[in-house]
């Protein structure tokens, strides 16, 4: 008898949860629609990181009811330059269009891959981001940043640090930022470039390189498999997703860096349009639809809109520009 009772109670509880859950969801579906439709321009081909960000965001916005419908357009070419050009040249007809972009827009306009910069566009919002990390294999003798710096001082340019970007690209710059903040000469760093983060990780685990500069989400995935040790992360505080990884700041190295992804609109877009877009993005964080997409992709919520976004980008441009000049890339 007792078991039936408990089972019934459990069933009742479950039904109640489902009922509450569905009302909550129904309410969310009725969440006030902020925009009728939103068009995403992706500066690269289908299947890349930008593509995933645009489609994931669009999925969350439409599923939550904040935006009526979303459409996507892939426009590859010129390392993203073709899409930026398109946004500027067709500005008048692009009133419900956003372009996805990320940290490389800052780096590539500095190196002159394309002549424009984020200043030529309307800044809508930075929506997600990933911190960077320095990792070593689990069986490495290096236990922390002090150990890494000691090895670097001893071995000089025999000490190889790899990454999944070109020299002067993001992974290199993060490693150099850390070295500079630790009082070392960043030009002495022997940076070994790989074609992609995965290849660089293979290089680290085969023993070809001594340390690796990579994105935090990739680093956490391998640390959880006990393949690498995270020596430091570029966040201001430890992240809840993996709180045994120390920050650089707590080891006396003053480095913070966010690889952001965000959205830009055509230049000269009317204020009310921009604020409607910003409203849609900022309300998106509270929805289940977004949480589902975010968790599936392992993204970190980092929201920055309008003027805050501008000052963030300007600071990043300043810091990266200084470093690239010091390293001889500009």
């Amino acid at each position, binding site marked *: 008898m007792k078991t039936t009772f408990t089972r019934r109670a459990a069933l009742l509880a479950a039904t109640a949860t489902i009922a509450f859950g569905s009302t909550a969801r129904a309410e969310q579906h009725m969440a006030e629609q902020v925009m009728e439709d939103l068009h995403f321009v992706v500066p690269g*081909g*289908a*299947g*890349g*990181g930008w593509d995933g960000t645009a489609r994931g965001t669009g999925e969350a916005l439409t599923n939550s009811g904040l935006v009526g419908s979303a459409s996507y*357009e*892939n*426009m*590859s*070419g*010129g*390392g993203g*330059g*073709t899409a930026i*050009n398109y946004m500027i040249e067709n500005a008048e007809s692009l009133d419900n269009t956003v372009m996805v972009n990320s940290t490389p827009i800052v780096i590539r306009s500095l*190196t002159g*891959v*394309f002549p424009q910069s984020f200043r030529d566009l309307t800044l809508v919002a930075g929506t997600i981001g990933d911190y960077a990390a320095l990792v070593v294999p689990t069986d490495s003798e290096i236990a922390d940043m002090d150990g890494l710096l000691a090895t670097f001082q001893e071995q000089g340019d025999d000490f*190889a640090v790899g990454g999944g970007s*070109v*020299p*002067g*690209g993001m992974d290199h710059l993060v490693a150099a930022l850390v070295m500079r903040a630790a009082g070392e000469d960043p030009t002495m760093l*022997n940076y*070994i*470039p*790989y*074609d*992609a983060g*995965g*290849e660089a*990780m*293979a*290089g680290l*685990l*085969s*023993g*070809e*390189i001594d340390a690796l500069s990579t994105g935090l989400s990739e680093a956490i995935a391998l640390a959880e*498999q006990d393949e690498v040790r995270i020596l430091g992360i570029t966040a201001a505080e430890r992240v809840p997703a993996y709180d045994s990884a120390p920050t650089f700041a707590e080891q006396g190295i003053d480095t913070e860096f966010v690889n952001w992804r965000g959205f830009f609109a055509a230049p000269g877009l009317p204020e009310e349009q921009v604020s409607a877009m910003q409203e849609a993005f900022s309300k998106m964080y509270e929805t289940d639809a977004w949480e589902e997409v975010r968790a599936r992709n392992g993204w970190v919520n980092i929201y920055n809109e309008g003027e805050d976004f501008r000052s963030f980008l300007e600071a990043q441009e300043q810091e990266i520009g200084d470093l690239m000049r010091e390293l001889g*890339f500009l």
Partner: protein
Amino acid sequence: MLEGILLGLSAALSVQNILMVVAGCLIGTFIGMLPGLGPMSIIAIMIPVAITLGDPTAALILLAGVYYGAIFGGSTSSILLNAPGVAGTVATSFDGYPMARKGQAGKALTIAAVASFAGGTIGAILLAIFAPALSSVALLFHSAEYFALMVVGLSAIAAFAGSGQVFKALLMTVLGLILATVGEGALFNMPRFTMGLMDLQSGISFITLAMAMFALPEAIYLVLDPKRSETGSSSGKIENLRFSRAEGRAMMPVIGRQSVQGFFIGVLPGAGATIASFLGYAVERNIASEEEQKEFGKGSVKGLAAPETANNAACTGSFVPLLTLGIPGSGTTAILLGALIALNVTPGPRLMIDEPDIFWAVIISMYIGNLVLLVLNLPLIPYIAKILTIPRTFLIPFILFFTLMGAYIGQNNSTELLMLVGLGVLATIFKFADYPLAPLLIGFILGTMLEDNFARSMQLYRGLDFIWERPMTLGLLILAAVLVLLPSFRAYRARLKARGVADGD
């Protein structure tokens, strides 16, 4: 590893992926049957479709299904028309066509189906054993070894090129390497050879190049060479699908030997289904009894089963270097590699560890695919064979449509269309001049990796010292040199011999 297999099993058995296997096998069989359209053309046409799926597992399963479906379909036209749809089934026509002319077309098709099934399934078992083993060794490879492996791969293309084709194959490989240098490299912060054009900044798109090399020229070739557009006349009715028990017994040892031999030939870079099937045919003829030898070429059961087993086993074998080293051993696997990279998957030794679901789902889907091919094709063969009577004029617009749409859809960039047409015309000229196109594509896809790994090794060892300091690198480079020099040495000896005969005259 068991966990990975289970993960792959659940992925491979999802409704979506089973649909992909069935769809891939059917599409492959249908198109592979049409003379002139090889697996490379079909896969090139299918890439945009696969990439739109967005899920790398589903995409790879679809493309792999198309691959062995095409080899399977190719044998049907070899047997019925004496017009092999793909090069890997040329040897099938040696005994399959005579058998069909004797009124035993149905039996020939059944033997081909059973032999293909056995070759593919045994190949998949060997793949499941050898791929993880090779993967764990490859985890220790440094850039220097990868560089040397790629040199071996490029040399093997020349070594396995047909007689009189060695020089042409080398030239086309070099052309592929040259094309690969366009755009921003992974190791330099500077665009190269873009002629100031923004559209060349990220280099030549692999998908565009693959379709320009393997899909467009086929269509143009069919238009320009009307002889090939004639429909063949089927060589008799397909009635009795059965073969006798004695014939079954004769086939067994052939299937056993050829699935193993074919698999290992497929693993070798540069060699593939074509070489495996010819070699399988030759070996079986040599070891057959004198009486059976007379049968070869006149409709021998063994002569049909050998190449059919070997080519399917070799298809499966060619996935070993692709999945474990990230190095394509053939034109077809080069196309598959390009598709994977476009889907953000980096094949290599880490694939099995980082994405076991993809790795194992693909292997398991091969068992399912072989079963699907057998079940679908045995009862349907008489009906499927009807496709052979479709005039080629209907086919050409389809190829053109899929090629042009495919190049545009993925990128939404009209420049891709111009490049596709330009490169396609170039490829057609090469085709008419009898230059092989696969080496160009392999050169193109290996070119970037070759350069990256070379430059990385140079930077790590501050020069070329890695050649002497890493014994495995040295060994592989010596192997590459032997592979390139061997055919020319043989040709030289043959010339000497020929002159000797002439002198004696």
